């Protein structure tokens, strides 16, 4: 029974012009977006000499030997590994810091490496999540806005329901058929995009990436399902196709354009981030807390300085987390819209976003601590050393002058999260999308079931 209904709806979609327009538009954009990413991905990896090797160059002398006397005083850069799936959702990948400057004794700064001609970039390069989020959600409305109100007006709904089918069946069929049609467009467009990537061959897609791509596909379907339901809801609620269309449009604009864009503005009302002047005052207060009274020996001075550095690092991390918290406030507000939820879920899936940034900084700090510990250990094993490390004073360390082997501590490993971790990171957003779906589903169906099948006279 339902198969018959779905078949008819699906046929109607497939033969309609709008689906072809959607298919062409989406495919074209996803393919070009993928190609664009591929070109970029290549240039970013080759242009930055620091991306690949573990960033312990500062400790390595001309002959490639590790020497503690060479410990860099001002810091060296640790680079965030780029996600090969950045084309899925790249806002965080693009806009968040990708470089952490550390010295062996502490975290110095978190920053973005500037890329050639950034100012020339379009304001928001369109990634897949954005394109799908805007165009296919709009398409979901196109496929559904007149389905119920139009059929009620035309009387075909009555004609269908004159048959022994449950009242909810036509709506369910419409839902599934529209979703199926969109899934077809999505799958085709995504497959074309991925194929483009494979043909261009510059972005290495590994086994885990396929899992993530499937996860992204599923997330997209969940997202589109919401907009199909929203379209059906508008079409149930609107008395005429025109009212339905206007209703859908209004909601769509609100959800896709207005709410997600207000995130940054709402975040501005979160005042947890302190002004720079206060932060530097706090840092000065730390220096005051660890004074070096006259007559301090170099040894004591080293200990005091390292304590001071630890406190500074903690302050910087705290400051960074306050900033993340502020972003979180904006994101929480934006999550009122399924569009934003989808974007964040997609970002988590692609291995980007705020959690990834925090993970990267954590990795960097952990690496820094491990490296420093290894340096201290190596130094301690050298009896000829005076075991004094002085932060900031280049070449001022009275450390072991021997060549040492720091082992694995030298390698900075910052891998993008695995598909399991991605799923975990995206979990809450996926759940939230599910909740939005359920809500829309419940409202659309109860509304429909409580409604008369017959049109008002005069419509």
């Amino acid at each position, binding site marked *: 029974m339902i198969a018959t209904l779905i078949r008819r709806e699906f046929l109607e979609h497939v033969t309609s012009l709008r689906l072809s327009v959607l298919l062409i538009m989406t495919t074209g954009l996803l393919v070009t977006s993928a190609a664009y990413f591929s070109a970029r991905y290549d*240039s970013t990896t080759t242009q930055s000499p620091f991306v690949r090797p573990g960033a312990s160059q500062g400790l390595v002398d001309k002959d490639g030997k590790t020497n503690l006397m060479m410990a860099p005083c001002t810091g060296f850069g640790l680079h965030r590994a780029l996600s090969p799936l950045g084309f899925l959702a790249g806002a965080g990948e693009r806009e968040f810091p990708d470089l952490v400057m550390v010295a062996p004794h502490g975290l110095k700064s978190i920053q973005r490496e500037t890329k050639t001609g950034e100012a020339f970039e379009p304001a928001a390069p369109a990634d897949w999540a954005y394109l799908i989020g805007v165009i296919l959600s709009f398409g979901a409305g196109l496929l559904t806005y007149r389905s119920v109100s139009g059929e009620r007006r035309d009387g075909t709904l009555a004609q269908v329901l004159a048959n022994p089918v449950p009242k909810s069946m036509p709506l369910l069929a419409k839902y599934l058929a529209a979703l199926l049609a969109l899934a077809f467009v999505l799958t085709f467009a995504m497959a074309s995009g991925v194929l483009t990537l494979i043909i261009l061959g510059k972005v290495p897609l590994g086994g885990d990436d396929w899992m993530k791509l499937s996860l992204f596909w599923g997330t997209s379907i969940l997202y589109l399902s919401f907009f199909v339901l929203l379209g059906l809801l508008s079409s149930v609620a609107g008395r005429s196709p025109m009212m339905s269309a206007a209703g859908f449009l209004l909601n769509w604009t609100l959800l896709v354009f207005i709410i997600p*864009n207000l995130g940054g503005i709402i975040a501005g009302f979160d*005042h947890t981030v302190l002004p720079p*002047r206060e932060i530097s005052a706090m840092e000065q207060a730390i220096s005051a807390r660890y004074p070096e009274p006259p007559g301090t020996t170099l040894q004591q001075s080293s200990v005091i300085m390292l304590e001071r550095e630890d406190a500074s690092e903690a302050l910087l991390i705290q400051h960074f987390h306050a900033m993340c918290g*502020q972003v979180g406030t*904006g994101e929480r507000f934006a999550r009122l819209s399924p569009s934003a939820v989808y974007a964040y879920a997609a970002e988590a899936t692609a291995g980007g976003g705020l959690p990834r940034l925090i993970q990267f900084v954590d990795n960097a700090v952990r690496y820094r601590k491990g490296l420093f510990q290894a340096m201290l250990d190596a130094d301690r094993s050298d009896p000829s050393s005076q075991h004094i490390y002085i932060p900031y004073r280049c070449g001022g360390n009275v450390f072991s002058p021997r060549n040492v082997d720091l082992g694995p501590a030298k390698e900075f490993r910052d891998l993008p999260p695995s598909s399991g971790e991605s799923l975990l990171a995206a979990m809450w957003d996926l759940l939230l999308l599910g909740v939005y779906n359920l809500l829309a589903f419940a409202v659309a169906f109860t509304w429909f079931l409580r409604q008369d099948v017959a049109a008002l006279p005069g419509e």
Partner: protein
Amino acid sequence: MTGILDIIRKELLINLLSLRFIIGLVVVMLLIGLVGYVLTLDYASRRQAYIAAAEQHSRALEDAKVYSTIKVEMDIPPNPLSLLSRGSKDLPVTITVSPYHVPTILDASGSGATISLDGTGDLPVNPLLRVFSSIDVGFIVGMIMSLFCILLVFDSFSGEKEQGTLRVLLSAPVGRLQLLAGKYCGALLSAATPLTAGLLLLVILWNISGLVTLTPADWLGLACMYAASILYLACFLALGILISLFAEESVTGLVHQLLVWVVAGIVLPAGAGYVAEFLHPILPETELIREADENYGRAYSNVRYQQTEGSWNVAYTDYAGPESFLGITEKEALNRVEYNKIIFPMKFALAEEHFHIRDAVQRSLERREEARNSLDAISPVAAYGRIVRALAGSDIGSYRRTFAAARNYRESLMEYLRPKVATAAWVTRVLDQPELQPTKENMSYWNERAKKEGEDVFLKEWWNWSRVKPLDLSAMPRPNLEVPGLRERLGDALFPCALLMVLTAGFLVMAGWKLLRYPA
């Protein structure tokens, strides 16, 4: 003539009383109010940061002690109109000018992009917030108000036809074109209402808060922006009416208009960006620069330097601290001046070479941008975006001018510095101040003290850089960066404006043509 006025009045009344108008008005007012408020605060903080930075940078110049290290930081004053359109995120706030660096727009990196503990400023900055796409008044008009326009006119003819009122209208002694003009003007007035109200709200907000003060030129710019926005809305309304004439049914008209909107607002700009990328690949800046540096390094090491006398400090490198250059004898200093006469012109040449590379890269980027612009030229949304950015001075064109001004300034600065830098660098300060030279008398005095107080005394007191007097830079040309003039910005906005006008006129002509053949 009265007929037209009646039609306009009727359209206006019907629109103003409709639900869609009220919803549109409320949404637009709320958005402009909220966004305007936040952007006003943002502008205030940028202005404050500008003032603080400018002060700090001019103070840094006062302490300059060596010609060869003079580096001028030019701060770009924020333009109050950039409130309406923020432009690219990564536009620079300062331009660095030095003998070794010719500024190009490629130096640009967004302000405050680094999270660290040292900073100044009383307002919090969070570089992470750049992850949110920026929404400004230009966006609200460009995307939201264009939708509003579609909602206003999507059924202007098809709806009346469906209701049957069109026949009644046409049976009145009014020409069809008059009817079109009346409907169009009525819609335009209705669409202009929220925009006008929103901008008034913003201006009132600026006046009350006192955070933004506008010069007469700014007011003029604002008026131009208002006019451009009206033109943009007029374009969408004309398009809407045209489609409504072609649609058999109001709903299909609406859907077609929305499709056009999605294509014009999203598909075309995004697609154009991608395609342009392939048409004009950017030059690999880093590689070219590295190559130039290597060539320079080879030439540099070919210049042999013969030390005349032993110096107290071991290393002779350009980059070890300034103290290394104090404590040399007059003879050695003069020897080094000779060396510098060869080396410094090479450094300047390298700076020029870097500039040529960067300039070529910038040109490739500009070509790409031009390609992007011509690819989505047909989209009114893109054209409007270009107009507001140009008028607000937040587009690349304005910054290009600012950088050209900075380069001009560098020329005059170099005129002043070249004779001074090329003949003498750090070492000349030793020639200025004989008390720093290791002459016999000086040596015996300081050795004496070193015996009593320890070796530290040489570095701490004798060759202490703070003993060196600051330079007298009163004759040095000072930087003066200004927001590019309104006339230039208007010039940039002219072409997209003309494009919008042509589009609008084209839509209207087509609508008139269709209306004359419209079956009522």
